């Protein structure tokens, strides 16, 4: 399957915009990605191993967080995984309790 890498993370995939991996689940795909490109680990996951809150992972057009099986969702070779950091902001003051 293919994993689409967003612009800011391509510095850690040898500038590749798309990485091909063999994976049976979303977790497998992300593990394959971070195994091939270890620097991706800290950008995608917290030290506790959870996806960072601002990192969205979509399996085709579905947010993995909202799939019934989450990251354990099965994948096929024709699936596409897209990693997309969130984009937000605004003129409002933001406190750590609501922004982080």
């Amino acid at each position, binding site marked *: 399957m293919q994993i689409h890498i967003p612009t800011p993370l391509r510095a850690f995939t040898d500038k590749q915009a798309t990485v091909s991996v063999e994976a049976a689940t979303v977790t497998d795909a992300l593990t394959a990605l971070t195994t091939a490109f270890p620097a991706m680990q800290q950008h995608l996951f917290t030290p506790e191993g959870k996806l960072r809150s601002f990192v969205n992972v979509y399996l085709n057009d579905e947010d993995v967080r909202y799939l019934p099986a989450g990251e354990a969702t099965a994948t096929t070779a024709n699936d596409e995984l897209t990693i997309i950091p969130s984009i937000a902001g*605004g003129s409002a003051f933001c406190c750590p309790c609501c922004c982080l």
Partner: protein
Amino acid sequence: MSLTITQALYDQLRAHGEETYPNECCGIMLGTADEQNLTVSHLLRAGNTRTDSAHNRYHIAPQELIAAQREGRKLGLDIVGFYHSHPDHPAQWSPTDFAEAHWFGCAYVITSVDGDKTTGTAQITNSFLLTGTTEEDKAFATQALEIA
């Protein structure tokens, strides 16, 4: 690193801020990047999902970002930045903008729009480059905005 944009696109992103006033507008910039410059060649308007506080917050749905990334692939372009407006607020990044900025190496363009809470006029437009590589060392750097 500077940001280059055509006069027509520059006018479009400023006009977007006037249209959504007194709420914030937001959009995605597609283009190309090299060591010296980010060049914008397409603007994609985005919906602001923060309808609960649209006058001072914005958020672009991930689905729109994915669609933009797909569009970029078709055109041979990348997402090189984003734009939004600050109604009745300076064209400077806010603590909220900084906390929620995660696209390293991309431009964050902000336009101040001043008005009477009914209609607004675009004032100053600034661009800030998100530098660094992690949440710990990231910073906004003012970048030259070149109108081609």
